[in-house]
């Protein structure tokens, strides 16, 4: 690649002075996405202390315009707002598993359309029914067998689960 880093930075600066909120371009092999709303102020050469504090507050996102220039097909990844769940703040090592005692089909609710036996955040004890496993029209209700808070449902309704497959993660620390 013949492109010089300084050239690239000059191009980026030029684009940032334009009116677009966001655009994408490809220079040689390099793909660049310029997004003004998510961009930091230009970076000073750190050894030459300019003492210009960089604002860390960001303006609220604006809806993206259609791409103006797209020189090559670029895979687009969607990164929606973060949605913390019960697991995010729990150390993975502390969680315990509720595993399937058999291979079969997992059902989260007593019947289709009914509310699930358990949901994330619910506290279960040894005798709480957490799901149904079906093997050839034989329906077995599965108990939690341990006490804790449901931190994650690991399988989808109607999914085939294996013997000893983890169905739920449980945070035992509910006191």
């Amino acid at each position, binding site marked *: *690649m013949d*492109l*010089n*880093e300084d050239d*690239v930075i000059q191009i*980026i600066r030029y*684009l940032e002075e334009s009116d677009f909120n*966001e655009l*994408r371009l490809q220079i040689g*092999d*390099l*793909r*660049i*996405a310029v*997004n003004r*709303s*998510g*961009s*930091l*102020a*230009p*970076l*000073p*050469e*750190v*050894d*030459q*202390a*300019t*003492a*210009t*504090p*960089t604002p*860390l507050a*960001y303006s609220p*996102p*604006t*809806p*993206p315009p259609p*791409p103006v220039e797209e020189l090559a097909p670029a*895979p*687009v*990844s*969607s*990164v*929606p*707002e*973060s*949605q*913390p*769940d019960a*697991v*995010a703040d729990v*150390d*993975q*090592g502390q*969680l315990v*598993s509720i595993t399937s005692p058999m291979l079969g089909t997992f059902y989260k609710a007593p019947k289709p359309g009914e509310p699930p036996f358990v949901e994330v955040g619910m506290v279960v004890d040894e005798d709480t029914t957490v799901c149904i496993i079906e093997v050839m029209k034989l329906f077995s209700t599965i108990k939690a067998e341990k006490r804790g808070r449901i931190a994650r449902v*690991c399988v989808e309704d109607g999914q085939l689960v294996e013997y000893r497959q*983890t169905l739920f993660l449980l945070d035992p620390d509910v006191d």
Partner: protein
Amino acid sequence: MPAITRVLVANRGEIAVRVIRACRALGIETVLAASEADGDSLPARMADRTLCIGPAPSSSSYLSVGTIVEAALGSGSDAIHPGYGFLAEKPELSQACIDNRIVFIGPSPQHIRTMGDKLAARQAAAGLGVPVVPGSELIDELSKASVMAEDVGYPILLKAAAGGGGKGMKTVYRPDDLEAVYREAAAEARSAFGDDRLYLESFIPNARHVEVQVLGDSHGNSVHLFERDCSVQRRYQKLIEEAPAPGLSGNLREKLCQAALGITEAIRYENAGTVEFIVDQDKGTFYFLEMNTRIQVEHPVTEMTTGIDLVQEQIRVAQGDAVGFSQGQVSAKGHAIECRINAERPEDDFRPSPGRITRWEPPEGLGIRVDSHCYAGYTVPPFYDSLLAKLIVAGNTRMEAIARLQRALANFHVEGVDTTISFLSSLVERADFIAGRVNTGWLEKVASIGGNHR
């Protein structure tokens, strides 16, 4: 010290594979200590022998010092490589190795203990004239914290003395928040380390994380292998690491490397270590942060630029050899970048996504290296960290390396579990990243506004 002939690998995942490969290259046999959940893992297949050391939870397997040492003794292993994480920085394992005449491939228990106590390490660095972040001694009671915080000046950072991985670390922006945040940080530190001692530092808003790789031997030789930039972090977990650090002047680079080397020499550190610094981009200054007494996840970027196999060097110096090169012989060429591919759902607050990998096609080609333990059909167990692979690219220039990284990510196909691949893809296309305009807070800002970034 006699040459090592058989190494017990006390770890799992990609680093177990990495250590086994290094041992093979040196003609050393390997015994893998694996939990029940890892019996069919790639390292278990590669090792000359695999021992099942306990059930899946790491507290009963990978974190059990007695079991690991017994496994080494019972399998006739003359050395233990701890990898990173788990027991790598527990002085107990290093000590138990000495007690049982096993070579610990890592530093002495004293070095681990001194550098593991963040406050002690900070004092050691300050004593050697290395700048440390303005801050306090240990806070023994909350009432003193507010005085100390006023001295240092808000915003401040509360840190656990026994800390690591961001646990017990909290930013306080205003005096009114201090008490609540202090209690929260102490509780987190107690739960993570069984030690709720905290200290406080000035919080540097526009900071980069730059670290220097060092290596010492038992003959008193110490060398540094230049720096790595690890500023792209999420909740203090590194996602992208590169060498050399972008935007760092030659003058500052030289100061950092010499400071790191000075600490290594002064404490007569043995084996591979990393001295971490904070670079204040607004002031153009740097501060000692901590020293990690293990091989690090991101070591391959240094290997790619210097051409030195760090894990092989670890083994050589552990068996008493001198470091295989002088400082003058170490040079860094080109640019290398590492991305951590995790089994996580970025759109769901990066929650782990364990499960069976049904498709696994890593990229291949010039300047591309993938360190991984995964394969199609492998089940990622829910018990451990979510690292699937490290994608490392090298190029003659940073721009070449970035372009290669973009292509490599586009050609990395994984199905069956959710991964961070497409998230990383969008990240390394961002003008900020390409222009080197990031700080340690950048990624979390980007991720939180990412919903509108297409």
